[in-house]
């Protein structure tokens, strides 16, 4: 055998030993896992950390949380890289179910979007409806002397997240074409999560659309100076849902199995009365109000109104949170 060949064989063997050893070491510590792809707001507010800790304390499962925008969350789930999705863009969720990627959707929580901006509110949107506020922001932006693109008045997530999807629908509700608006010199698209977008908006003294949960956390921690300027209304309702990735069907070309059984256990846990109670109370002590409100009990009680009707209007498909053709087992979820 040639010297070089010997050297290469030795190197290859050692490499295999190192890889095998490392994997054995890592696997020694790991349990069954479910990968949860989540919208950034549920994660950045710290809510999921608490839920994860509580769940892992009582179940032999590792929860791995990947925090992305809703658009990216859906993308990785279609690739078969996640087991559970936590999202807040009903239109995208509907497509996801229709294309056969997900099952067993449950509406789990809600809160409101708000437009946040500098406290002196140069566009004068305070207390307006979302549509009027956007009109005022456009009017103010067009009146600025500087149209070179240096001065930004509106900062957008720009990442196909649930918040970005909501922003698009609000622009069209106010009578603007989104593509034209997004091309304006005063419009900035940052393509990141809610936290980063809030930081940019605060630094630039600009307006942005945010879920109230992430905004309250950032504002309380003192890292942004923006204030919330709009009050709750139907158009600003923000509904969070959970779905399981459909096992086997979409990913038959790989050996990877979606961990469906553990995923469904986790979904049952999320919509249980105790967890719903916990979600509703989360943040009250630190931020003076709930960041998220559990949606399961209100939907059962059909109260408080008109909020339950708003939730149905925003996030139900064919009159159901999950039409029967998109369910698979677990009838107790819908009883």
């Amino acid at each position, binding site marked *: 055998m040639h010297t*070089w060949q010997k050297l290469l064989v030795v190197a290859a063997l050692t490499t295999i030993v190192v890889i095998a050893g490392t994997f054995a070491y890592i696997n020694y510590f790991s349990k069954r896992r479910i990968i949860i792809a989540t919208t950034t707001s549920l994660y*950045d507010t710290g809510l999921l950390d608490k839920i994860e800790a509580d769940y892992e304390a009582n179940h032999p499962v590792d929860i791995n949380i*990947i925090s992305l925008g809703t658009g990216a969350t859906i993308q990785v789930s279609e*690739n078969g890289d996640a087991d559970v999705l936590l999202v807040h863009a009903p239109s995208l969720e509907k497509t996801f179910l229709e294309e056969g990627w997900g099952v067993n959707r449950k509406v789990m929580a809600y809160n409101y979007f708000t437009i946040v901006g500098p406290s002196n509110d140069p566009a004068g949107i305070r207390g307006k409806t979302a549509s009027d506020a956007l009109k005022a922001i456009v009017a103010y932006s067009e009146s600025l002397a500087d149209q070179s693109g240096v001065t930004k008045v509106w900062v957008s997530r720009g990442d196909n997240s649930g918040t970005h999807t909501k922003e698009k629908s609000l622009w069209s509700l106010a009578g603007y074409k989104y593509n034209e608006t997004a091309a304006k010199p005063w419009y900035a698209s940052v393509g990141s999560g809610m*936290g980063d977008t809030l930081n940019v908006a605060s630094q630039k003294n600009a307006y942005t659309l945010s879920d109230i949960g992430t905004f309250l*956390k950032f504002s309380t*921690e003192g890292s942004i100076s923006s204030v919330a300027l709009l009050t709750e209304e139907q158009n600003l309702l923000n509904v969070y849902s959970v779905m399981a990735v459909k096992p086997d069907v979409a990913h038959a070309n790989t050996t990877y199995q979606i961990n469906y059984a553990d995923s469904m256990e986790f979904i049952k846990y999320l919509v249980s009365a105790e967890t719903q109670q916990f979600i509703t109370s989360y943040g009250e002590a630190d931020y003076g109000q709930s960041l998220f409100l559990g949606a399961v009990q209100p939907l059962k009680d059909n109260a408080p109104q008109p909020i339950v009707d708003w939730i149905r209007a925003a996030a139900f498909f064919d009159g159901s949170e999950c039409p029967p053709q998109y369910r698979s087992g677990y009838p107790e979820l819908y009883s």
Partner: protein
Amino acid sequence: MGLDIPAGIGKALELILTGDPELYGIVYRSLFFSGVAILLASLWGTPIAMLISLKEFPGKNIVKTFFNSLIGIPTVVLGLVLFLVLSNGGPLGFLGLLYTPGGIIIGEAILVTPIIISIATSAIEAVDPEIMNLAKTLGATESQASIAVLKEAVNGVILSNVASFNRAIAELGVALLVGGNIAGYTDVLTTAISRYTARAEIPYAIALGVLLMVLVFAINLAILLARKTKLLFAIVKPWVERVKK
């Protein structure tokens, strides 16, 4: 109310000094992932470097240029490529490496391989070719002669490892896209800093930033000192020999 930087730094130091488990878990993962990645890259990179430097073959310069230019590959591009390949919908999805420590380790090993190969190749080439011939004349087999050359180039090989470590521990793209930044599982110093900033948990971000800088400085300082000592030897040696005479 604004961003209270002094308070953030104070809190960060407190976290560092009290040995916050979350914080040091992240440091441990950073060191572990980068360490194994460099071990792997050395294992396959050093023999390749020896082949390239000691063998004559057509297209040798093209191969060298290839590895040299790969040194600068943007980490996010490599992260993207690996994400697509390792995804369960991708060609290597069956390995189940996406969003696991193994994925990060393999990714970082690939990232630093060109550094190992390029630096080690130049170091070995810089060794006087007469050493190989001399060793052979003295009755060494070809493998013994190669080892003799590698010994002469050992400083360059170490340098290639240090440069790789700096690159691996400070990179963000691969760890973020392939690892997914899962808290307590695949988050490393760089990705965790970005996460804590995005979550308004500034003290943690500062603490990790400080630790990352300390690590990188410490390692480079160690190398600098090692070189200084060697330099010192080089200066002192002739005097010592003169005195001996």
